[in-house]
């Protein structure tokens, strides 16, 4: 037992020491540490799907285009310039004269190989398959890349596929099984990945040959936290320098720390209600058990009038959101954002909601609950939310209160996330459900989630719909914007689609949650958000924030060393205390056994 205690004490003492070893690192590298709460699924861009992995890909690989840091409009990346044929079917990109991080020149052949691989190998479609679905053929000639499309596609310039070095990747036999854990990676972005410890971190080093110029810091570490609360502790302590995608309570807990900047700007997400307005499968057969009253646009409009969006923002989101007077595209995307005005605009008005329902024949019964005009069913709706989400619980409370005022009973149904996805996206076993989507600079993706073709098939499988919506005018507007290569005209069409969603109300937008982040100003001297005017840091589009990142130099580093020295001193002190305790135990035992012997 004595030995064990001594060993334990020694371990405790030693465990506190490594701080010294690390602080004594001779080379003062400029390192910035980004905390993330999602681990990397795969370093192979053909397979990876997670957001964190997408962000890392943006830093180590070039793309055809990248959203402009000011306007978010497509701007040159690996493609220097481009032209489109009059029919919109042939796109020609001029690939930049630049070098891969291993010194090989970048040619159009690299891009052609990447796209062709995805078009011909099903195993390479997992990551970004839909991006090449409309591609007829891709050919290369020197620095000239020609992509022929099956149908015109305006979102071509928001292509999410990282261009891979052919000379490295063509040697891979089976892409679908390739881990790509070879370091340093060969890429063309501002950083080169040099190490990946699974579920722990990814280490990126500045790419000295990056064509825009080397980043200003030497190393970027992406550090994984399984637990958001621990990541907040990590930021406050200085184990990480920046963390994004915070929820309101965690964001609030950063208040009062002089070293931490609370980053609160408009976000890329919209939160909305999805209404089962008569769900159907892709062959137009009814599916699910939605309440028949919700098929009536008047009922949906009444539901819309009975929501106090400002109140929700204040009470549910702690004021850290913007009430939605538009639809599924948040105001961050100025070009595409549509906002209701005039008579069309729905504002909180319970009297008006009641009147709409009265006029439409939904009479209130003696218990104050309305019934269908034919008296067949009461207006009792289920509200599907996720389990263990306090924010959604609170939202449900408010909605239930307001809907009671207009004679509608709302009961909350909590589902775990996979069951929730199934019931609200495939089997349609819901009335009203919480929903939302993070929107890209090109909104085609989110617009596509409300197309007829995204409804589940007759076998009940497949899909990808976020609303079971199938509306002829929405469909034709979608096709129109797809063909329109003039950005201004296309934006007008997209706004009409948002207007249609707003007035027909298969979805009702509630608010646009703010982008909440935190970073240490004693470590990060400057960082440019995307867009530059009130934009995002982590989770934004492109690589701008992490390319422009500047670290606090020397002074900050010496403060840091002082901190770890303090830790070391405390650690040694702690070890001494443990040793003293152990010694005390041993001595006490000695004396007690001596007493025994005398007896």
């Amino acid at each position: 037992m004595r030995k064990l205690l001594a060993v334990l004490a020694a371990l405790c003492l030693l465990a506190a020491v490594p701080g010294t070893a690390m602080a004594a690192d001779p080379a003062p590298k400029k390192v910035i540490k980004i905390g993330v709460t999602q681990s990397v699924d795969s370093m192979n861009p053909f397979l990876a799907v997670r957001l964190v992995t997408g962000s890392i890909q943006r830093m180590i690989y070039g793309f055809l285009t990248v959203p402009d840091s000011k306007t978010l409009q497509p701007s040159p990346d690996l493609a220097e310039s481009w032209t489109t044929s009059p029919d919109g079917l042939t796109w020609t990109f001029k690939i930049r004269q630049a070098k891969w991080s291993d010194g090989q020149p970048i040619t159009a052949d690299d891009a052609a190989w990447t796209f062709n691989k995805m078009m011909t190998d099903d195993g390479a479609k997992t990551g970004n398959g839909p991006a090449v679905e409309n591609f007829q053929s891709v050919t290369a000639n020197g620095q000239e890349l020609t992509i022929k499309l099956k149908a015109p596609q305006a979102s071509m310039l928001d292509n999410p596929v990282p261009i891979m070095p052919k000379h490295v990747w063509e040697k891979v036999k089976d892409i679908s099984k390739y881990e790509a854990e070879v370091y340093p990676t060969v890429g063309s972005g501002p950083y080169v990945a040099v190490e990946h410890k699974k579920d722990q971190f990814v280490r990126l080093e500045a790419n000295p040959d990056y064509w825009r110029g080397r980043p200003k810091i030497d190393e970027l570490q992406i550090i994984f936290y399984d637990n958001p609360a621990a990541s907040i502790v990590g930021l406050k302590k200085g184990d990480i320098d920046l963390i994004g995608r915070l929820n309101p309570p965690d964001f609030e807990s950063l208040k009062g720390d002089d070293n931490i900047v609370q980053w609160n700007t408009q976000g890329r997400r919209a939160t909305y209600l999805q209404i089962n307005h008569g769900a159907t499968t892709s062959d137009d057969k009814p599916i699910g058990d939605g309440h028949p009253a919700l098929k009536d646009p008047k009922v949906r409009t009444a539901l819309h009038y009975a929501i106090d969006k400002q109140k929700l923002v204040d009470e549910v989101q702690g004021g850290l959101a913007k009430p939605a007077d538009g639809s599924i595209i948040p105001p961050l995307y100025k070009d595409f954002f549509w906002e209701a005005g005039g008579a069309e605009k729905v504002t909180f008005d319970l009297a008006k909601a009641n009147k709409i329902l009265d006029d439409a024949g939904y009479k209130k019964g003696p218990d104050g609950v309305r019934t269908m005009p034919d008296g067949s069913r009461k207006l009792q709706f289920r509200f599907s939310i996720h389990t263990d989400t306090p924010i959604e619980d609170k939202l449900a409370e408010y909605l239930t209160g307001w809907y009671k005022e207009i004679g509608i009973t709302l009961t909350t149904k909590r589902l775990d996330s996979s069951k929730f996805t199934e019931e609200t996206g495939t089997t349609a076993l819901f009335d009203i459900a919480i929903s939302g989507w993070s929107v890209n600079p090109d909104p085609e993706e989110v617009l596509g989630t409300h197309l007829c073709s995204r409804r589940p098939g007759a076998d009940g499988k497949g899909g990808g719909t976020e609303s079971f919506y199938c509306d002829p005018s929405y469909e034709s507007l979608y096709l129109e914007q797809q063909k329109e290569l003039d950005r201004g005209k296309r934006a007008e069409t997209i706004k009409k689609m948002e207007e249609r969603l707003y007035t027909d109300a298969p979805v009702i937008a509630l608010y646009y949650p703010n982008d909440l982040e935190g970073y240490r100003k004693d470590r990060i001297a400057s960082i440019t958000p995307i867009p530059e005017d009130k934009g995002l840091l982590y989770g934004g589009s492109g690589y701008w924030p992490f390319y422009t990142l500047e670290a606090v130099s020397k002074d900050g580093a010496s403060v840091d060393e002082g901190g770890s020295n303090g830790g070391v001193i405390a650690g040694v002190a702690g070890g001494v205390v443990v040793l003293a305790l152990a010694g005390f135990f041993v001595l006490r035992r000695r004396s007690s056994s001596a007493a025994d012997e005398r007896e």
Partner: protein
Amino acid sequence: MTAVEELEQTPVRHGLLRYAATKVGGALLSIAMVIVATFFLFRLLPGDPVRALAQGRNMTPEQLDLERARLGLDKSIPEQFLHFVGRTLRFDLGVSYEYKRPVLDLIGERIGATLLLTGTALVIAVSFGLWQGARAGWKPGSRFDKVSTAISLVLWSVPTFWLGLLLLMVFAAGIGPIPGIFPTRGSSSVDKPDGLAGVLDVAQHMVLPCLTLVAVVYAQYLLVMRSSVIDEVGQDYVTTARAKGLRDDDIRRKHAVPNALLPTVTLVFMRIGFVVGGAVTVEAIFSWPGLGQLFYEAIRVPDFTLMQGTFLLITVSVILMNTLADVVYHVLDPRVRSA
């Protein structure tokens, strides 16, 4: 050894072999049942894994079908079942939906971290718990007994998640005069040094998760040991030993404790089985890159093959350790043999 003694021992050896064979047979049967149950259990979970994978991403119906085919979900349930059983018997746990890699590889990458953490915690919890239990039981009602039993029970009742976060906030972040000397996450630093310093770096990362694991479980060893020692205190052989004039400590250590250890054997072996499963909660709090974290991620997706794989591994190791405990007990305690 005389001939008579040899004769007497043979049936015992024989009995042990037969006993062990029965137990191993039982274990194999349990494993077979677990394999079957695993397949159907996870098919009962709600949610279409392909749809879940596509969540928050825009995927066309064609692509979803492609994914379904990749995961083998386009086949009928009996076909999937036969495929699953055949594969499992060849120690092939399939390919993870989410990571697109063999489950066995994923487990292999993480099992080391888990064994290190939970193994260390088990050793500390067992030695600490048994030691305290033996001392507490030797003089029941004493101050040491009251204090140690009370503390262990309080820690036993505390939710792991809460205790872990509290330790993290106090000893990793530092509060007031208490410095935050321990890291907030992971099993090593990003700039982990080589050699001895590297080992120390891992040790430093292990302190808080290990402490959490020990604190919430050592009570069970303490209590079992305590009651077992209390039983021994009143035994005649203890009185005899006292009458012989042996030191109190010697009686406890050399006579009472070895006898009292028997009931703890089963307990410890059971826990060894669970060591493989790791500690999902603790791994999640301290971002420890082990199996618990992998299992947790698998449930969130849901990633059928990964869940099946980790679940099988955990259950099989528990069954094996249980069987081993039965056999060891048989050897240690002659009374079981006649039963």
